[in-house]
C-alpha cells in the first residue's frame, strides 16, 4: 500500500506542475492535456507492469523532485564532452536548448536546427510532432508529451547530404533532485543523409538527475541515417531514453546504443519499418558495474514486405549490476520476404551480477527468414590461459578479451573519432 501512496504523491506533484506551467508550454495544449490524462491513468510503472518488471521505477522517484532547473553551465565545463573536433553541436542543459553553448554557425544549406520550443510553426514540426510516439502506449511517452518544454528540432531537406556529424549533448546538472522531460524531433527527408550522435552527461550534480528523454525520428524514402547514442552519465544519472523511429521505403537506418555508465538507464528503442526495401541495423553495447541497472527494450516492427533488420546487443556485467535485454520483433501479415535477425550476448564477470534476456519473435507472415539467439557466459578460461601462456598478464589477457567481445559492436560505428573514444572508455573501464 505504501508504494501506491508514494506514486500518487509524485503523480499529484506532476499534475500540479503541469497546471502551473501550462501558460508557458509550446505547441498544442489539447495534445498535452490528453497526454497528461493518459499519464495519470497509467501512473509510474512498477514491477507489476510487464514492460518494466525488472526495475522498480516508482522507488527511484521517491522523495522530493523539482521539474525544471535554471542552473548555468559554462562552455569550459562541457569542453570534455565534445569528442568530435569537427561537428555541428547542440547543447541541451536540463532539457533546455542552450544556444550560447551550441555550435550552430556555418550550418550547411538544407539543414535546420531549432530549439523545439520555437519550432512549432515549422511545417515539418506540425506534420510529424507526436505522430509516432503514442501517448497511450507508455507512461513516459505520455509524461514527456505533457511536460516537455525544450529540446531540439532537426530537419534535413530532401536530397541534402550533411557530411559533418551533428552532436547533441544532453547535460544534467543540479544540486537537488530533478525530473526533466526533454524532447527532440528529427526529420530526414527523401534521399537525404545525416549522422547524428547523441550523448548524455552529468556535470556538477550531487542529487538525482532523472531525465525522461524522448526523440522521434522520421526517415523518409531512400534517406540514410546513422544515429549513435553514448550514455555516459555518472551515479547521479537516471535516464529513461525513448527513441521512436519511423522508416519509409528504401531508407537505411543504423543505430548504436552505447551505455558506459549511469545509475539507471532504460532505453526504449522502437522502430517501425513502414515501407518496402528498408534496411535497419540496431547495435548495442552496455558495460555495467557497481549497482548500475541498464535495461534495453527494443521493438522492430516489420509492416511491409522485403525489409531487412539486423540486431546485435552485447553486454559485460560486473559487480552487483544488472542488465536487461528485451528485444521484440514483429513481422506483420503483409511483411513477406522479411529478413530479421537478432542476437544478444553477455559476459558475466561476477557472481552477484544479473542479466535478464528475453528475445521475442512474433511472426504473422509465412515467407520470412528470422532468427534470434542469446548467450550468457563467463570470460573463457581457455582463452585467458592461452594468452597468459604467451606472456600476457592475466589483467592484459582479460582486457584484450573484453575489447574483442565489444569490438563486434564498436566496429559498426562508422565515425572513426567516435570509435576511438569508445575504445578508450572500454580500456579505462577494465584497467
Amino acid at each position: 500500500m505504501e508504494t501506491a501512496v508514494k506514486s500518487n504523491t509524485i503523480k499529484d506533484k506532476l499534475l500540479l506542475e503541469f497546471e502551473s506551467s501550462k501558460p508557458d508550454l509550446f505547441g498544442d495544449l489539447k495534445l498535452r492535456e490528453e497526454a497528461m490524462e493518459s499519464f495519470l491513468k497509467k501512473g509510474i510503472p512498477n514491477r507489476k507492469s510487464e514492460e518494466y518488471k525488472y526495475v522498480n521505477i516508482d522507488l527511484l522517484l521517491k522523495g522530493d523532485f523539482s521539474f525544471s532547473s535554471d542552473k548555468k553551465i559554462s562552455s569550459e565545463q562541457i569542453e570534455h564532452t565534445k569528442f568530435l573536433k569537427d561537428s555541428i553541436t547542440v547543447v541541451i542543459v536540463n532539457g533546455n536548448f542552450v544556444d550560447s553553448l551550441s555550435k550552430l554557425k556555418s550550418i550547411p544549406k538544407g539543414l535546420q536546427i531549432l530549439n523545439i520550443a520555437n519550432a512549432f510553426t515549422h511545417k515539418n514540426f506540425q506534420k510529424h510532432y507526436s505522430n509516432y510516439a503514442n501517448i497511450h502506449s507508455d507512461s513516459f511517452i505520455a509524461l514527456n508529451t505533457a511536460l516537455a518544454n525544450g529540446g531540439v528540432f532537426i530537419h534535413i531537406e530532401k536530397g541534402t547530404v550533411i557530411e559533418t556529424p551533428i552532436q547533441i549533448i544532453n547535460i544534467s546538472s543540479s544540486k537537488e533532485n530533478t525530473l526533466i522531460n526533454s524532447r527532440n524531433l528529427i526529420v530526414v527527408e527523401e534521399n537525404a543523409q545525416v549522422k547524428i550522435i547523441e550523448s548524455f552527461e552529468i556535470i556538477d550534480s550531487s542529487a538525482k538527475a532523472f531525465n525522461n528523454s524522448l526523440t522521434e525520428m522520421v526517415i523518409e524514402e531512400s534517406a540514410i541515417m546513422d544515429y549513435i547514442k553514448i550514455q555516459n552519465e555518472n551515479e547521479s544519472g537516471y535516464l529513461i531514453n525513448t527513441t521512436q523511429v519511423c522508416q519509409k521505403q528504401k531508407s537505411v537506418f543504423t543505430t548504436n546504443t552505447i551505455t558506459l555508465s549511469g545509475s539507471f538507464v532504460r532505453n526504449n528503442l522502437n522502430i517501425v519499418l513502414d515501407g518496402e526495401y528498408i534496411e535497419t541495423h540496431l547495435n548495442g553495447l552496455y558495460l555495467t558495474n557497481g549497482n548500475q541497472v541498464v535495461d534495453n527494450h527494443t521493438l522492430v516492427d516489420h509492416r511491409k514486405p522485403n525489409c531487412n533488420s539486423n540486431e546485435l546487443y552485447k553486454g559485460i556485467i560486473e559487480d552487483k549490476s544488472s542488465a536487461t535485454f528485451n528485444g521484440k520483433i514483429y513481422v506483420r501479415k503483409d511483411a513477406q520476404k522479411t529478413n530479421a535477425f537478432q542476437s544478444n550476448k553477455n559476459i558475466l564477470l561476477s557472481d552477484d551480477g544479473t542479466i535478464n534476456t528475453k528475445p521475442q519473435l512474433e511472426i504473422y507472415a509465412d515467407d520470412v527468414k528470422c532468427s534470434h539467439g542469446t548467450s550468457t557466459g563467463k570470460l573463457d578460461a581457455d582463452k585467458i590461459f592461452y594468452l597468459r601462456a604467451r606472456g600476457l598478464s592475466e589483467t592484459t589477457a582479460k582486457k584484450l578479451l573484453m575489447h574483442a567481445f565489444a569490438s563486434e559492436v564498436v566496429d559498426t560505428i562508422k565515425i572513426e573519432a567516435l570509435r576511438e573514444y569508445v575504445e578508450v572508455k572500454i580500456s579505462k573501464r577494465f584497467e
Partner: protein
Amino acid sequence: MLNIKNLHASIGGKEILKGIDLEIKAGEVHAVMGPNGSGKSTLSAVLAGREEYEVTEGEVIFNGKNLLEMSPEDRAREGVFLAFQYPVEIPGVSNVNFLKTAINEIRAYKGLTPMEAKDFLARLKEKQKLVELDGKLANRSVNEGFSGGEKKRNEIFQMAMLEPKLAILDETDSGLDIDALRIVANGVNKLKSKENATIVITHYQRLLDYIIPDVVHILYDGRIVKSGPKELALELEEKGYDFIKEEVNA
C-alpha cells in the same frame, strides 16, 4: 636447462603423473612418446602452468628457477613456450596485436622498452616466411576460422616470434597432412640452436623423421618407462605400444 624430479600431478583427485624424472640440456631435442592416456598432455599442461592440475610432489627447475612457483605468464616470460595441441580461437583479437602485446609484456618483464614498430614488422615478415604463413592470416583474429593445419602453423609462427628457450610441442603433428607436417617441422628445425631446447610430444614416430630427437622417452601410466636414442621411436612404431605395456606389466 630443465630438470624435472619425481613429478607427481593430479586432476580432480586423480593422479596422472606418477613420478617423472627428466633432464634436458640446452641444444637438445627430446621426444616424449606414449599411448593415449599415458600423461603426455598432462606433462605439457603442468609445465605451462595450467591451474586445473595439482602438483602433489616433486620439483621442476628451469634455468635455476623453480618453475612450479611461477604464474603461466612468468613461465612464458622466462622462455617456456607451449605449442598447444588444440589452439583456441580468439575472435576480435588480431594475431598482430596479440603478438605485439606478448612481446612487449615479455620485454617489460626483462626491464626492456617496447619493441620499435619497424623492428617488430621486420621480425613479423621474416618469421611468416619461415612457416610459410600467409600474410593475410597474420592480420586476422587469432586462429579464427583457421584450418587445423593453419592453427598448428600459427603456433610455430608464434614460437618463432617469441624466441623461447624451451619449446614444448604438444602433438603438433596431430591432424596434419604430410605437406603441413614438413612445413611445421622445417620451421622448428630452423629455430633450433645451441641455446634452446625442444620437447616433442607425439603419439606417432612420423614427426621424428623430420625433427630428429637426441633422446626418446616412452611415457606409460604417468611414468617414463624407457629412454633411448632415436632408434627407440622406430622400434616402438614397428612393435606398437603393446610391447611396452607387456614389458612394464611383466
